[in-house]
């Protein structure tokens, strides 16, 4: 099997981001919050300060490294919530049909009609800023695509011989959904999930930029960008490095999603075998 470049590069970028987040205490040079020192405020990048320092003299490199934790936690956890909601609703709607299908369809259409970031903003406004609110807001607002795909897959899989065979063999609905339908639709769900993680990382940045994200002084890439707003001309390194971190992570997730689509797509899979 030929591994595609987008899969390798995307996977490597995503793995790098995860490693950085996991190993932050060892990779960081200083404590991202406590080690403020006005004596070396707004130093440009150098051998001592790889990514420079901010107006309180905190090491940007260390803050970017720690920031990976927030961005990835939000990206991964909120997308997992979205995937679980989307699959549960879409799968059951496609399999059962009837009034439940109508309800889920209506709900999905509403979700698709409201831009998810606006919806998340509204939820954040109610819950207040913070990591938990971020996870809830982003986890509840981006499941409609997963739901659509799960529903469409369930509809087409429902008439497959092995699903009917399972009914004949006395499988209950739940068992059919988990053993016959879910494993056979996992490919597209994983692809959408990967791409969704990328957009969740971006949404986190956007919400934090608006001051609704993780509470300062703990760093997230979005809140660092937000803090750097006023110094973008005088100290551009304050925005460049967190921006680059967001860019590379999202790029990696998108490439990974594309690469996974190439190998998980049933059509390209049947071409291989």
């Amino acid at each position, binding site marked *: 099997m030929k591994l595609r470049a987008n899969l390798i590069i995307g996977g490597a970028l995503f793995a790098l981001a995860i490693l950085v987040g996991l190993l932050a205490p060892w990779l960081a040079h200083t404590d991202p919050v406590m080690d403020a020192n006005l004596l070396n405020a707004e130093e440009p990048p150098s051998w001592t300060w790889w990514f420079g320092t901010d107006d309180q003299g905190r090491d940007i490199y260390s803050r970017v490294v720690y920031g990976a934790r927030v961005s990835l936690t939000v990206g991964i956890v909120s997308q997992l919530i979205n995937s679980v909601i989307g699959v549960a609703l879409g799968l059951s709607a496609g399999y059962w049909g009837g009034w439940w299908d109508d309800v889920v369809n209506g709900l999905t259409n509403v979700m698709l009609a409201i831009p998810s970031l606006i919806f998340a903003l509204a939820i954040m406004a109610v819950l207040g800023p913070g990591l938990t609110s971020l996870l809830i807001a982003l986890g509840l607002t981006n499941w409609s695509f997963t739901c659509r795909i799960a529903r469409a897959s369930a509809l087409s899989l429902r008439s497959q011989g092995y699903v009917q*065979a*399972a*009914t*004949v*063999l*006395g499988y209950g609905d739940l068992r059919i959904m988990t053993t016959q339908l879910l494993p*056979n639709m996992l490919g597209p769900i994983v692809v959408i999930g990967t791409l969704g993680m990328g957009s969740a990382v971006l949404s986190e940045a956007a919400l934090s930029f608006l001051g609704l994200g993780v509470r300062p002084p703990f760093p997230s890439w979005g809140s660092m960008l937000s803090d750097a707003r006023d110094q973008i001309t005088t100290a551009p390194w304050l925005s460049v490095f967190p921006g680059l971190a967001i860019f590379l992570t999202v790029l990696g997730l998108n490439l990974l999603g594309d690469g996974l689509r190439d190998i998980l797509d049933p059509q390209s899979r049947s071409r291989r075998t």
Partner: protein
Amino acid sequence: MTGAPLIEVEDLRIDLDDGSRRVAAVEGISFRIDRGETFGLVGESGCGKSITALALIGLLRQPLSIGGGAIRFEGREIQQLSAGRQRELRGNRIAMIFQEPMTALNPVSPVGRQIAEMFVLHKGKSWREANQLAVEALASVRVPAPERRVKDYPHQLSGGMRQRVMIAIALACGPDLLIADEPTTALDVTVQAEIIELMRNLCAERGTAILMISHDLGLVANVCRRVAVMYAGRIVEERGSADIFRAPSHPYTQGLVASLPRLGSRAALGRTRLKEIAGVVPAITNFPHGCRFNPRCAHATDICRTTVPGTDVLEAGGLVRCHHHA
């Protein structure tokens, strides 16, 4: 054990609701199968064999529904059972092998797991025990090296092997009745014979009754002790397998028997064309009045076009539904 037959179908009607009206897809279906017995249901495509089988296991879904009559399993009416009780029967007491063996296995699950699932589902076994039983089940359908084969995915197996796996799954819980709906149509002739032989032997060993469904009278009569011939939603003749070849009574059955190649006959050697029954099977919404075979029947008279023939008991044993039967 009671004296009741294993399964008894009485005057069953299945309605097809096409949105505007109900038509009977099958009607007046009656038969019984005793424990360990082999019974065949034969008829042309679309005559209602599969939906009759689905009715037996309580799986008719819209637009099809039971419109009348009764189905009794060990004396208890299936329609009276709750959905949960019906589900407990399926796969456990009544199992079914499918028309398309190629697609009846889950492509992303190892075959051993699919067999084991039956023990977990119906017998409350742990996965560890169930996996062990799955190996034994694969061995019983004569799959070589079953300890290794349980880990295979369906696409790694040939059509014949897959059908053996299907049989292993169906017989896993030791059902009392095995319904085999065209179990071998997708297989080539030699494999077909092997599979049929295997199924017959296993069921005979375990005392499992067989309801075999096919359009192939020769195949069914070979496996089953008794055969019912269906035409356009009704059973037209029910006989012992030997009798139906020796002296078919209904004109449609006579046509079927005449169209079978006989061993060593000119037709079997491909020198003459087989005698076919002229005409086409009527559409479900457009069944003729009276006897539904009358447009194609050489013996048809006026009464055939107006009055539905009743079921007559033959002196030689068996039932036939024809005004002028032999």
